[in-house]
């Protein structure tokens, strides 16, 4: 099938992009498609109202994702001990954080493997030591939560409803991090998503523990939250720096390319070095580290 490439003039600053998803990839075909859609008539009238009403019926009839079991210690005379109001919610959220920290450990392991495979010669990106340190702290947080759940009389192996939902949410993060094609900045973007969720999760857990009078747990959560804030700050800084470096590096190349074209005889169009540079999985050379 013939594709209709954009008609690029030799002296145009527009580049032949590799990404074929936009309508300008095949502009003539796109024009035909747009006109065809405008002239067509929907097979049924109305709008998305019915879509919403169908979904509403499912929402009405839905059953919860699942239950959060509460393990209760039973004394010799058969009375349950250790239970307090809010325990089920606390165990549910502890289970959520536990699943997150456990997966977070594996995420950082995968990130480490990627960084060890890709030469990073710039201080704007993460070092192996820093990533390893974060990974170790994620594991410590997992163990902290394991012990906290057990101390409350819970089963730390349970997949609570919130843990299940968190697992679904973080599936995309795992896919991005474990994909050999994603760059360090793209991986950092995924880690930023995870760290943002994690930070809010720890803050909520700290507040919840305080609300329920669980002082020891509150203190543990406060320390973990502090460490998670450091993780978030680092990940954000790395991502920002690498993104700015990439942008400034591209700008410099374009300027250099423009100067070169002004002084050289006209040549046939070629692929921009920008697209090659953006595939580089290592950080670009930065002149200075930009701060947020």
């Amino acid at each position, binding site marked *: 099938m013939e594709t209709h490439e954009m008609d690029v003039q030799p002296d145009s600053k527009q580049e032949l992009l590799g990404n074929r998803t936009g309508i300008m990839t095949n502009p003539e075909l796109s024009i035909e498609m747009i006109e065809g859609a405008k002239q067509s008539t929907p097979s049924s009238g109305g709008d998305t109202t019915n879509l919403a009403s169908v979904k509403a019926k*499912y929402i009405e*009839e*839905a*059953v*919860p*994702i*699942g*239950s959060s*079991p*509460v*393990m*209760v*210690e*039973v004394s010799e005379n058969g009375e*349950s001990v250790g*239970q307090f109001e809010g325990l089920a919610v606390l165990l549910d959220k502890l289970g959520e954080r536990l*699943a997150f920290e*456990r*997966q*977070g*450990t*594996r*995420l950082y392991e*995968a990130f480490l493997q990627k960084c060890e495979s890709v030469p990073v010669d710039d201080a704007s990106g993460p070092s192996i030591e820093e990533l390893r340190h974060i990974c170790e702290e994620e*594991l410590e947080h*997992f*163990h902290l939560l*394991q*012990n906290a759940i*057990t101390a409350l*009389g819970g*089963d*730390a*192996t*349970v*997949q*609570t*409803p919130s843990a*299940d*939902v968190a*697992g*679904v949410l973080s*599936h995309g993060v*795992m*896919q*991005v991090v*474990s*994909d*050999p094609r994603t760059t360090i900045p793209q991986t950092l973007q995924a880690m930023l998503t995870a760290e943002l969720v994690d930070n809010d999760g720890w803050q909520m857990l700290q507040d919840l523990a305080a609300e329920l009078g669980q002082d020891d747990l509150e203190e543990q959560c406060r320390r973990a939250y502090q460490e998670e804030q450091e993780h978030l700050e680092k990940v954000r800084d790395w991502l920002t720096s690498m993104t700015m470096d990439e942008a400034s590096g591209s700008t410099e190349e374009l300027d250099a390319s423009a100067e070169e074209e002004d002084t050289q005889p006209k040549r046939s169009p070629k692929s921009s070095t920008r697209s090659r540079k953006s595939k580089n999985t290592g950080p670009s050379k930065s002149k200075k580290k930009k701060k947020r």
Partner: protein
Amino acid sequence: MSLDLMKEKGVGLEEQEFNWRDIAGVPTSKLDSDAFTRVRIILMNGIESEALRFQHACARMNKELQLASARVRRIEQHQQTMVNWLLPADLSPLETTIGFEQVAIEVTASVAEHEPDPYLAQVFRFGLLEDFDHMYRFSALMDRVTGCDANNILQSYTDILPGRPTAVEHRAPEDDLREPYDRKKAAPISKLNAGTIMAGEHQTHDYYMTIGPMFADPVARQLYAEIASIEEQHVTQYESIIDPDETWLEKWLLHEASEIYNYYSCLQYESHPKVKAIWQRFLDYELGHFHYVLDLFKKFEKRDPAEIIPESLPEPIEYRSHREFVRKTLSEEVDLRARKTQFIDKDDEAADSPSVVYREQMNSKGSPSETIAAGYQWKPGTELAEETPDIKKLQTKVA
């Protein structure tokens, strides 16, 4: 009390109706449903998938049966959808995979335990230990890549232990074919067993082929490629134990009988009320299909269906943990290999045999199943967990 296939008429085809709301109903809960409810859902999806597959093949070769087959298939299609859509959206592809292997292990174990033909029972046990190892490899993948515990799906019914190593399961095609049962002599249960396990394995193969490329992790992609290849071998094995001289209509009638048998088995064990109602409804539908095909059989084959169909169904498949049976089989038969249609000890497998040559070629750039599970030992809460909980010391009950 067993089911009399000739006496129970079920529901006629014209009364077997669906609508989209009915088909795409409220799914089961991943967290709260018993693992065996999920096992039954997955198996019955496979049974229905096989019904469609077989009837399409039959239709391609029998013009006079095309309309009848299209009518029955239309119902089977919607049955399959309704069953499969009982699985919830939060069951990830890898979690579903764990469920698939649990089906393969527990259902094959039940079948192997009750199979009266010693050779066929050996065939089932041979495949069982290979699917058992797949469970171990996928569990390691789940643990080491996603940080999740496969036992959240298995609910402690099924072990996570090495079986016959996946890396040595790769065989030359001639070593996957087995001896078929004799259609005139085999016990009805043998025919039902063969059809059931073949359906399960074919479904598993197709599922892994579909989801394999959805994984970004390269070792996951390799592992699915490897295990999907074994599942194709298993389909070859199990379809080869079925007498190829059975006529098309004979096979069709046996398929319908197998569907009845499987829905009946599910009904005996199901604890989930809504799912149980579906098993009852579809048991009645399958009885209707059976009698529809029975009439065709009498018309075209002009012989007594009692030649191939038992008066009553055999004992149902047992939906329970088969830990003891599996561990015993593992200890006695893990070192078996195959040479043509027979089973041999691994020491008797020649270094230049077609299977060894093939295996070495496939593993020549590394073995994903060995890589992912190197040093892996399952424990509750994953490898990263600090310690295994001492369950016996806990004096608790779930509130």
